[in-house]
């Protein structure tokens, strides 16, 4: 009986500590050479970045220069998961506010940045303007981006149309196979991926990417052993953040949270990684669990200072609400907002799980209807419903 108050007092003290660390703490430097801030590493070199920025400031209408600057920042945004770089990239394109008069490469970059920022409708609109231009349709990269955005929106048939315009070769075939797999044409899609993987000359990055698609196909089809073999195959090729996160989700779903933690051990603690770490550590009763959860909670609170954040990051916030807070109602609300915008299998899975946890028939029915409207084949969702 004596222990409860002690635990309570300890928890209170810990909570106070976390709350205190969430607010700003003053810095009082004493020497001129004291380092106050370490700027994020840049892949291409700081002085070159700065030089490019200055040249662009002098010639803001130089499309090639602007595209080069935006491209660099986009790469950095992807590498680091830091959305600030996407903002810097957009600023480089500011000389072309009207999409109709923007050069092709500028328009493609804008659409790609919008894809990164989850502004899918804007991205599709801009790609369509580009692809409708005379000669603009001979742009495999634009078609592939369009196919990807449409797929994320759950518009598989439209995505197929864009895949067919990518041309011939591994990317066009994989584009169609991915859609076929989502629709449940599993055997044909599996065969497609396996044929593509049979080419021994594939570079490791392409091989890893095809294997990840195959792993996800097997996971959605309920063939856990095949899925796990494919995920392991990807990670044997080298580090791959996307595949690590997908494999961690798979392991958490298989009730093997300790292994999920091990998979993510060397990944940078971006928000998507930290979310899985927090869930896995909690499930595994790891000592780091409470700290990871507190950190994730703090990041969500910070992001939500912008009112639209819970819309942009609805999937992650719904997963957190469901797995950590066990707040089914909140998770359901967040998941509903999320699927209004993006409809990857994971988005629908989260909606289905939140609906099931809430016990609300209308919500379960809503998830079921959405799944059949998309024509998505996913046995994990069937099990949740």
């Amino acid at each position, binding site marked *: 009986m004596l222990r409860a108050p002690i635990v309570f007092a300890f928890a209170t003290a810990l909570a106070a500590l976390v709350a205190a660390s969430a607010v700003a*703490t*003053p*810095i009082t430097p004493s020497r*001129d050479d*004291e*380092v*106050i*801030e*370490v*700027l*994020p*590493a840049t*892949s291409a070199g*700081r002085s070159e970045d*700065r030089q490019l*920025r200055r040249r662009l400031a002098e010639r803001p209408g130089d499309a090639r220069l602007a595209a080069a600057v935006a491209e660099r920042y986009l*790469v950095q945004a*992807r*590498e*680091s*998961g830091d*959305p*600030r770089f996407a*903002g*810097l990239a*957009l*600023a480089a394109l500011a000389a072309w506010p009207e999409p109709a008069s923007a050069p092709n490469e500028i328009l493609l970059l804008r659409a*790609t940045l919008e894809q*990164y920022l*989850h502004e899918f409708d804007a991205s599709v609109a801009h790609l369509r303007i580009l692809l409708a231009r005379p000669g603009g349709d001979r742009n*495999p*990269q634009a078609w*592939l*981006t369009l*196919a*990807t955005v449409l797929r*994320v929106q759950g518009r598989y048939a439209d995505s197929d149309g864009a895949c067919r315009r990518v041309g011939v*070769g*591994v*990317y066009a075939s994989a*584009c169609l196979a991915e859609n076929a797999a989502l629709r449940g044409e599993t055997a044909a899609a599996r065969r497609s991926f396996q044929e593509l993987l049979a080419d021994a000359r594939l570079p490791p*990055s*392409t091989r890893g*990417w095809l294997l*990840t698609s195959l792993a996800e196909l097997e996971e959605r089809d309920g063939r856990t052993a095949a899925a796990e073999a494919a995920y392991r195959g990807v990670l044997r090729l080298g580090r791959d*953040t*996307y595949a690590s*996160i997908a494999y961690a989700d798979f392991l958490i779903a298989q009730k093997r949270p300790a292994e999920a933690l091990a998979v993510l051990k060397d990944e*940078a*603690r*971006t*928000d998507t990684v930290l979310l899985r770490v927090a869930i896995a550590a909690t499930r595994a009763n790891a000592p780091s669990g409470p700290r990871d959860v507190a950190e994730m909670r*703090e990041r969500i609170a*910070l*992001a939500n200072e*912008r*009112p639209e954040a819970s819309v942009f*990051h609805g999937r992650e*916030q719904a997963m957190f609400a469901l797995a950590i807070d066990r707040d089914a109602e909140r998770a359901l609300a967040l998941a509903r907002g999320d699927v209004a915008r993006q409809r*990857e299998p994971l988005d629908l899975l989260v909606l289905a799980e939140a609906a099931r946890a809430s016990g609300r028939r209308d919500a379960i029915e809503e998830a079921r209807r959405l799944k059949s409207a998309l024509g998505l084949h996913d046995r994990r969702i069937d099990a949740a419903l």
Partner: protein
Amino acid sequence: MRPSERGGRWRAALHAVVGVVLLLGAAAALAHKASDSYLQINASADRLDVRWDIALRDLDVALDLDSDGDGKLTWGEVRSAWPRIESYALQRLTIDGCPLTPMGRSLERRNDGAYAVLHLTSTCTLPPTPRITYALFADVDPTHRGIAKVQRQGAGVELTVLEPRASAAGAARAASGAAASASSPASAVGARPGAVARWEFFVEGIRHIVTGYDHVLFLLSLLLPAVMRRTPAGRVPVERLSAAVWPVAGIVTAFTVAHSITLGLAALKLVSLTPAFIEPAIAATIVLAALDNVLPIFPVRRVVVAFFFGLIHGFGFASVLAELELPRADFAWALLQFNLGIEAGQLVIVLVATTVLFTLRRWPGYARVVIGGGSALAIAIGATWFIERTANVSILPF
């Protein structure tokens, strides 16, 4: 938080085919949130204190704080850059009616890095709906936002999200914060090239007269008795529409000519009167015009009254015009557009009001309820505005 990486994987694959090497390995990274600055605005009766936190890494992009380019910001680098930081930031924030003076500097650490903190102050009274113009990092990162918490003495905290370059008219409450900052109120117009060609100042003129309740109320006060004529036996309704139209047309023309004169004089900066006088004076014109409806006080015809009071209202329009920052190149054309907008809006209001009043004129209660009650209401509102504008307090919600 991190957006979906799914699309990135597909695009990365294509990059490989095109021959561009794209590393997908994640670099060392901490909390990833979008770029935000934080404004804590504390308002008391006669003083405003602003604490403004701006991330050093954002400032580095705009101002190259890292002078030796080693990727580390030292205290020495930040200290020598302080004057540049301060002037860069201060040029990008205005709170109307509250000129901000820097009072102090400090540094702090937040979840996502080190921040410069500017302490600003102003001896002013924050208006009930402050117009905040925010342009920080507008040229560097269009996704940047300012998160402003406005705390008034004895009131709750209001949260506003400020978008660079747009200006938020009024601190909207948290729930509607995004919507409020997304609207682009008057002061954003002048900055946009081609605004004149798109007749935006005409639209601003209409907007101003339609949402300028004091001008509308003044006009209505003048118009209330226009569908009646005075006889020794009291007021009787006019027989024909033409009998009402002519006095209305006379009043509206006099008002228009007068406010166009002062609007022009003020816009050309030939005459300038302080809003401290003009704003209460406008309120007084409403009270007097409405009072004249129930108790004749003016020894002259109403056309003359409309003209003289119109002169005062013209200065009121001019102060809005100053906020619009008319383009220098097309100044005359922009001014004409704004004035035409006011007249167009005014014409619609007058037509609607006259039609309604003309229809109601034979109703037995017209003199008592419409003229008497309407004027009493106008007197009450005008008097309240007069008190608000002289004592600088807020009573009415509009």
